[in-house]
């Protein structure tokens, strides 16, 4: 009896969630703002500045989608989410889009019923050690103490890596990245392991970054991307093609500097289709013709966004690496706009 009541309640909840999922675009337009889930703070990816304006690489995706849909990159309600609350916030309709350095995995995509709309950053788990340790490869870390954030996939990846290479380690569990920095600097652990982007940001904050090295091994694949709920493919398409437009803009050489000039019309039909001077791509999405132009103008194309927030000229100093265009030997490869 109790069980059936519970199941009934769950069914109602499921139906309710289904209803909430329909026509996200209309909801967003009616609200006049995009509810975008971000982290409560990750260096380079999302952080509020002194005036409370959010900035960062993931934030750029939110702003681009808001610009495409609503015409205003500032029309975003940023909802800070933690690792535990992010999926429920999306499933329950509290947010329309989750851009929170979330790894695309099978179970999240299929079992949790989300739709990853693309990959905006190819990350992977790495190791950082003090230079004085004299280690040049992760395989030499036999018997090392390792600072590791609990409850993340990095913990499991670490166990796998050490078992495969038949070497031992002693984990030092820590809760947050800030705590990890302190523990690592205080010498509580020989090695700190987390996503390579996080390692770079952490290392950049040290007094003497040169005293520490990031080892060459990357032991896991962490494709990070924005995601939406199942059940509203039209909304998923908008998010997917907004991200694709940013990537394609870099490939085709559309920048925030020359976009006005290019939107007067060019000889390249694909550029024309993206910028809305040719074809009806915007109408197919349920948007106007200049949606992609506004998305690109919000924070620049993918490359500009990258350089501005996490690139080599920022304190974080990440190289493009896997996140370069396919023409430059990276993995960014957007389907054609046709």
């Amino acid at each position, binding site marked *: 009896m109790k069980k059936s009541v519970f199941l009934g309640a769950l069914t109602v909840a499921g139906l309710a969630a289904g209803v909430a999922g329909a026509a996200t675009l209309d909801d967003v337009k009616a609200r006049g703002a995009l509810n975008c889930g971000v982290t409560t*703070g990750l260096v380079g990816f999302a952080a509020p500045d002194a005036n409370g304006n959010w900035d960062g690489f993931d934030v750029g995706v939110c702003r681009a989608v808001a610009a495409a849909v609503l015409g205003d990159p500032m029309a975003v309600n940023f909802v800070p989410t933690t690792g535990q609350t992010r999926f429920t916030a999306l499933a329950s309709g509290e947010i329309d889009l989750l851009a929170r350095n979330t790894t695309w995995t099978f179970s999240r995509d299929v079992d949790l019923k989300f739709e990853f709309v693309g990959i905006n950053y190819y990350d992977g788990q790495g190791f950082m050690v003090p230079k004085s340790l004299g280690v040049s490869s992760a395989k030499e870390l036999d018997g090392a103490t390792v600072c590791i954030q609990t409850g993340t996939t990095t913990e499991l990846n670490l166990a796998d890596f050490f078992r495969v290479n038949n070497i031992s380690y002693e984990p030092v569990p820590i809760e947050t990245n800030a705590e990890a920095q302190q523990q690592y600097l205080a010498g509580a652990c020989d090695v700190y392991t987390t996503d390579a982007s996080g390692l770079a940001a952490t290392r950049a904050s040290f007094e003497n970054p040169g005293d520490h090295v990031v080892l060459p091994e990357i032991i896991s694949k962490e494709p990070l991307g924005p995601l939406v709920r199942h059940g509203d493919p039209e909304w998923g398409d908008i998010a997917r093609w907004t991200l694709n437009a940013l990537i394609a803009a870099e490939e085709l050489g559309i920048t925030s500097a020359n976009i006005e000039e290019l939107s007067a019309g060019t000889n390249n039909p694909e550029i024309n289709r993206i910028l809305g001077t040719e074809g009806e791509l915007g109408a197919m999405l349920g948007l106007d013709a200049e949606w992609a132009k506004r998305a690109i103008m919000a924070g620049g194309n993918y490359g500009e966004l990258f350089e501005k927030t996490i690139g080599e000229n920022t304190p974080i100093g990440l190289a493009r690496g896997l996140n370069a265009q396919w023409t430059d030997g990276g993995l960014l490869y957007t389907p054609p706009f046709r």
Partner: protein
Amino acid sequence: MANTTETAFVRKEMLGAKEPPLTETGIVKWARENLFSGWLNSILTVLSILFVYWVLAHILPWMLGGIWDASSLTECRAIRDEIYGPDASVACWAVLTERWNQLLFGFYPSEAYWRPVLALVLFGVAVTPVLFSGIPRVFYALTAVAPFICYWLLWGGTIWGPIFVALGFVLGWIAFGVVSKAAGSLAGTIAAIIVPVLYWLFLDAPITGALGAAMPIGLEYIPSKDFGGFMLAFIIGITGIILSLPLGVLLALGRQSDLFIINKTSVIFIEVIRGVPLIVWLFTASLLLNYFLPPGTNFDLMLRVIIMVTLFAAAYMAEVIRGGLAALPKGQYEGADSLGLDYWQSMRLIILPQALKISIPGIVNTFIGLFKDTTLVVFIGLLDPIGLSNAIRATTDWNGVYWELFIFIGLLFFICCFSMSRYSQFLERKLRTDHR
């Protein structure tokens, strides 16, 4: 007596009191008695002094030499290299000069900072008649309206909203007066609950809407998501504290009641709420409720958190007060009955004043715990001071700043909790009647 000899000397007046020996007075005596009263104690004293010196010698230069004017951690380090040389370790308080407003107010618009400050002052004035005796009774009127004014100051919006919500309470009071005269106090109590609820459900919103459209008086509306920092901790903490005390009293009385349903409801409520960690209730408020509410309802997350924190604190409060009730001798209850007082009169005039007095340390203990527990909301994504310290650390400017933020947060929490503790001790002294 021929051979009287001259008396050599006879003292005519008393000698003045001598100074006590140096070792038996003042600081020396105190030190001898308290610090150096034996060889073991002397050694321990010296060791303790050395330890305290060692700690201060490390911390004080770090704190006092801190750098207050820089725009990023890198700049802080550059300034430090210039002044102290590269190996010195000094605090970088500049993160506080740049971000203090965020730690205190979250993302609340800076041109509206006067609103929470005024609300806090108003709250301070409104609680004085409750906290201290000898304040004119007219101030109780301010205490009654202060919650509505504070709400309006903090969130803004049309002024008619809080006014007509407050009207519901007045309606309830009138209903109680009218019905209890006609049909007895139980019917009066029921009417006092039903009438305002019906009013809030069906009449409040249209009236407020119509008046808001006709006479748009109000402040700029500021949504809950902009609230953060200590303001958030204060709002959750103070609301929880104010609401949990009466609720806790009712629950404690309910648990002592002979009425079966009231008794069992109170017991189950207290045990269930108390038996589950606060963090679980917060997750329930933030995650589970979303699935069960109809889609499209916008049930403010902060309101949900305040409700959960209040219920949680009320369960603890009920048990603390039950301890006070249990400590009263049976004679007090019987004395109240023999005076012919009814249940509520005996509770109000005889039992509760004594029971609450006994429970003061426990009550304040719960208050302090509740206030500090507000930092747990960081786990559901609300930006309380701890959450904001993470967010500040996530900017490239301040990545790597650690202790400075925590020291500031710790200091503010200490000031609040210590004041509460001192007030409770003042209250205990004031209410002491047993001539111990």
